[in-house]
């Protein structure tokens, strides 16, 4: 399993944007963590450092205590699977099956074992019937699920999802939730960037809030979405999930999830 640590991470893009401005973050192996923040706050830039696609301008990225500076992306890909925000920047094969098989094949998986991991990944995202389809004949939400499947098939200890629920209907979101739960059950680390506060509050025990290339808050949903911190959250252009807003209006304290809200209502009535 893989523990992640970022120390003093700064990233300046060639044309001068300072997308990360000193990020310190530790993620123990097996944790499930959500990163939230406005568009342009540096979330994507941050996660692209985890597999070496971007390299720090300053600071370090450590996997299991080891600086990854000198490790190649292809090597890091065995530990950190990154599902890109935009599936069209990830998908390149002419067939769904080939797309999903690409990663595990590079990791040396062959034959019946390869068929099995590809089949499992496609089943998990509900694309098992589309194995021979051209990815570009799938709609956007399904291409996003295909991009997810192509990372799942690599069975990496860390899985990073960049806005996995964007463009998904309720069924798609439910699929993503089930996948996240299954990954955690296997002890794997899941890091998800999301704008879907409900998804974040329901599924992630730890939430990291970013603003202008820095981490401005970090804690369980109950704390990050608590009424006392609404101002901080608003400064990042975000609003808490509906359940938290209702709880705050009713003076029930921190109720990040529907479940917490109902429980608080019950206690309150008594």
């Amino acid at each position, binding site marked *: 399993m893989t523990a992640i640590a970022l120390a003093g991470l700064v990233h300046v893009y060639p044309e001068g944007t300072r997308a990360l401005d000193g990020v310190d973050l530790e993620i123990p192996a097996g944790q499930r963590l959500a990163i939230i923040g406005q568009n342009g706050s540096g979330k994507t830039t941050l996660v692209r450092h985890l597999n070496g696609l971007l390299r720090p301008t300053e600071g370090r990225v450590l996997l299991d205590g080891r600086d990854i500076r000198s490790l190649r*992306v*292809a090597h890091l890909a065995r530990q950190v699977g990154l599902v890109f925000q935009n599936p069209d920047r990830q998908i390149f094969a002419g067939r769904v099956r080939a797309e999903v098989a690409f990663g595990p094949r590079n990791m040396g998986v062959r034959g019946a074992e390869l068929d099995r991991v590809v089949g499992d990944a496609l089943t998990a995202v509900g694309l098992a019937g589309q194995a021979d389809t051209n990815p570009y004949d799938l709609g956007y939400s399904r291409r996003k699920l295909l991009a997810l499947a*192509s990372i799942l098939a690599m069975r990496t200890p860390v899985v990073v999802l960049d806005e996995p629920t964007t463009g998904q209907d309720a069924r798609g979101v439910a699929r993503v939730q089930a996948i996240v739960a299954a990954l955690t059950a296997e002890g794997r680390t899941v890091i998800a960037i999301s704008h879907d506060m409900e998804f974040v509050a329901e599924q992630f025990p730890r939430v990291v809030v970013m603003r202008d290339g820095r981490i401005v808050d970090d804690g369980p949903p109950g704390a990050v979405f608590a009424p006392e911190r609404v101002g901080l959250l608003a400064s990042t252009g975000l609003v808490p999930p509906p359940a938290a807003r209702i709880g705050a209006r009713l003076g029930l304290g921190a109720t990040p999830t529907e479940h917490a809200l109902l429980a608080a209502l019950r206690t309150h009535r008594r």
Partner: protein
Amino acid sequence: MSEADVAFLQRLAPPTPSSYHRLNPFTKALAAVAESIAAFVIGGYVGPLAIFGLAVLPAAAMAGVLRRLVRVSVVLTLPIAISVVLISVFTRAGSTVLFTVGPFDATVEGVDFAGQVLVRLITLSTAIGLFGLTTEPRAFVFDLERRGLSPQLAFAATATLEAIPAMLERAKVIQAAQRARGLDTEGRIADRLRGVLPLVGPVVLSSLTEVEERTLALEVRAFGRRGRRHLLWTMPEATWEAPLRWVLLAVLVVIVAARLTGAWPAIP
């Protein structure tokens, strides 16, 4: 004209560069071709070096691209130059042996031959490089179309030229996606070469899709109709450029004829 059109026209004739940039593309193309052919048919050292030193270099200095030109042509010709030199120095038969490396003798004749090829190569690559560095490819194609090149051919040429940056960008994106899934393209040369293969299919595929879309977009605007069409833009061309081109062409014809007939003796 819309804002986009204005920006487009400005891109065709950028305001900053020199008067050499502002020459008509066809004139610059003809100069590059004439210089290259002349260097080859004259041969020896003096001829090609004179063309290089008296025509190409001053023009490049005037255009302000001297340093870039040197860099570009060195990068482009170095692999060819090295192999030509090695092969001709060591494999050309000759009577006077200069030095020996293993089983190979380097002869005076071999070194001389390599030297002659080298000066021609330098003149050729800088002449063509200068054209490339000072000419917007699409302006060249437009100008040819104005001179009667078929619009279909002009379109094919422009589409190819315009597809190149998009293709390079697409290749970069795909390569990042493939590396992120464990394809090693950063290691030894062998790894890098192996990493190119999985790129080719997807890049070509997506470029074809793009060209197809563009063709459709043109079809619906009656691109296929017959007859002349108007260009909404006039190519820069000074009045003396056409005569200059004829002079260039005439000089070239004379040189080629003189060399072929042996009327002009070989100069060292």
